[in-house]
């Protein structure tokens, strides 16, 4: 026997002879709360520093020194100037509001994560729960709401106003596969894979495919019409794709860093800092947005930060701090401006318009929502942006 063998044997014997305690989920959750509390304090300091830096850059611009960021104080929601209505449909409680001001009401909208106009009605997807993790997909038309099935809460929407793509699970089960639906076309998808379509490219539907079990890795895929040839993309978690399908973004294969990838070559073009939750590409694919979440804070000076990058180069075009506000979702108005749903600490909400020049205005009036809990899963916001290309 060698010393190496002796070590291996001894270490195994020690562990086999020891009884170990188990950790309950409540312990994990309680401990994570304590850790997150500490982390929040650190993030708050960083964000406060970011505001200070942003303020400095703003002053530099006024003095003619130039710079990339054009931040300014966003202030409380009510103090922001009211601008034009959103150029993106949105949900307000149980009402779907179109860009032309038309309002459609249905109980299905109250629990909807997202929705999209389709044919003579609105497709909508609810948020899943712990016991029923799949989303309920419904179709609201002519005052009636019909259930389409269960799936993932995401619609991939084409620029030309054609049919959106979405995924339905067979039998409302996580493990039985499903169908990728686009208009009348339905392509079967494998058992054990949950698809989340995020975009429509010339080659097909750009979607993430995650495992309903624990073992299989997740993939980003382009699924051409017919669904017979799946093209893998070098990403784990997929967030967005450009309409042209040339760029995709999401979580890299190291499961640590965000990446922007040339979908044609698989080459990583640039890496947004992992502090940002990367969001959506603008309509032409020229810009990419991201949100740096700070979470619930006690100080009015601290809030989420919106970032905009040149999608091709990674050059940051804008970094806009929104003091005192939590940003929940973002959607582009073409290439010109970004809409975000913002909440203040009292639970008031509004859709804000963030311009590429750093201007921040309100696109809706302020509505009363539900205050976000300090811990745990936040409620759905009263205002939610509809799915966009």
């Amino acid at each position: 026997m060698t010393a190496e063998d002796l070590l291996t044997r001894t270490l195994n014997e020690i562990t086999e002879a020891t009884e170990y305690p188990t950790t309950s989920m409540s312990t994990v959750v309680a401990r994570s709360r304590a850790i997150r509390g500490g982390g929040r304090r650190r993030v708050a300091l960083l964000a406060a520093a970011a505001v200070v830096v942003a303020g400095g850059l703003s002053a530099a611009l006024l003095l003619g020194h130039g710079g990339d960021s054009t931040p300014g104080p966003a202030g409380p929601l009510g103090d922001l100037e009211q601008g034009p209505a959103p150029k993106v449909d949105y949900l307000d409680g149980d009402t779907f509001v179109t860009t032309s001001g038309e309002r459609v009401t249905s109980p299905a909208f109250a629990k909807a994560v997202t929705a999209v106009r389709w044919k003579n009605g609105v497709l909508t997807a609810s948020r899943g729960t712990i016991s029923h993790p799949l989303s309920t997909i419904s179709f609201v038309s002519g005052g009636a709401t019909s259930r389409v099935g269960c799936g993932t809460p995401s619609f991939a929407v084409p620029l030309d106003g054609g049919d959106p793509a979405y995924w339905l699970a067979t039998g409302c089960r996580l493990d039985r596969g499903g169908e990728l639906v686009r208009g009348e076309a339905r392509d079967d998808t494998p058992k054990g894979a949950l698809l989340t379509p995020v975009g429509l490219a010339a080659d097909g539907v750009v979607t993430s495919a995650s495992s309903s079990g624990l073992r299989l890795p997740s993939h980003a895929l382009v699924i051409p019409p017919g669904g017979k040839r799946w093209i893998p993309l070098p990403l784990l978690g997929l967030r967005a794709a450009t309409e042209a399908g040339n760029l995709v973004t999401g979580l890299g294969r190291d499961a640590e860093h965000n990446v922007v990838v040339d979908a044609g070559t698989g080459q990583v073009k640039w890496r947004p800092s992992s502090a940002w939750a990367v969001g959506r590409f603008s309509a032409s694919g020229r810009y990419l947005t991201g949100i740096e979440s700070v979470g619930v804070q006690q100080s009015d000076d601290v809030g989420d930060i919106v970032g905009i990058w040149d999608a091709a180069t990674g050059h940051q075009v804008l970094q806009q701090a929104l003091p005192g506000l939590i940003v929940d979702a973002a959607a582009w108005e073409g290439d010109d401006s970004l809409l975000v749903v913002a909440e203040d600490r009292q639970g008031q909400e509004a859709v804000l318009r963030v311009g590429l020049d750093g201007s921040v205005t309100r696109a809706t009036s302020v509505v009363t929502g539900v205050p976000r809990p300090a811990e745990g899963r936040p409620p759905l916001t009263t205002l939610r942006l509809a799915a966009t290309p």
Partner: protein
Amino acid sequence: MAATRLRPPEGLEFEAWLVARESALQRTAHLLTGDVHAAQDLVQTTLAKLYLRWDRIRLADNVDAYARKALVNEFRSAWRRPVRRAEQVVERVPDRPTPEAPAYDGSREAVWRFVSGLPPKQRAVIVLRFYEQLTETEIADLMGISVGTVKSQSSRALAALRARLPDHPEISGEEAGR
């Protein structure tokens, strides 16, 4: 495209993974810390941090490897904290010097005492190499050190062990005399 960030059903997945894999983490943590209670604390901190980032971690190709890396990193962070390294909390101030470690007697407990007495970095390398059966390259990657450092740490620990082994009943004379 959906305008809202998606929230996958990560809660269920995490609990299932916790049930399946916690005992493996507890065992490795015990060998790293040398103490069951310290191991429990280390595992709970690691699990809490994994839980906070589970929506990302669940997408990794090898969740278990990610968790092991997190555990070792947490262990390394703990031993680097000056307060923990310099101070040991005791219930009473001892009125006599702490006794010397007993001499090596060839038993399992003696080998375990030897491993527990290694410096933390060396101990981590030994546990990963001879318990987890990782390669030197995998250990280097996991600990964020060079392969050369892994080799030297492992070599020093083995040399120290062999120096105590001449009389071990199961070690060949050639091996013990190296």
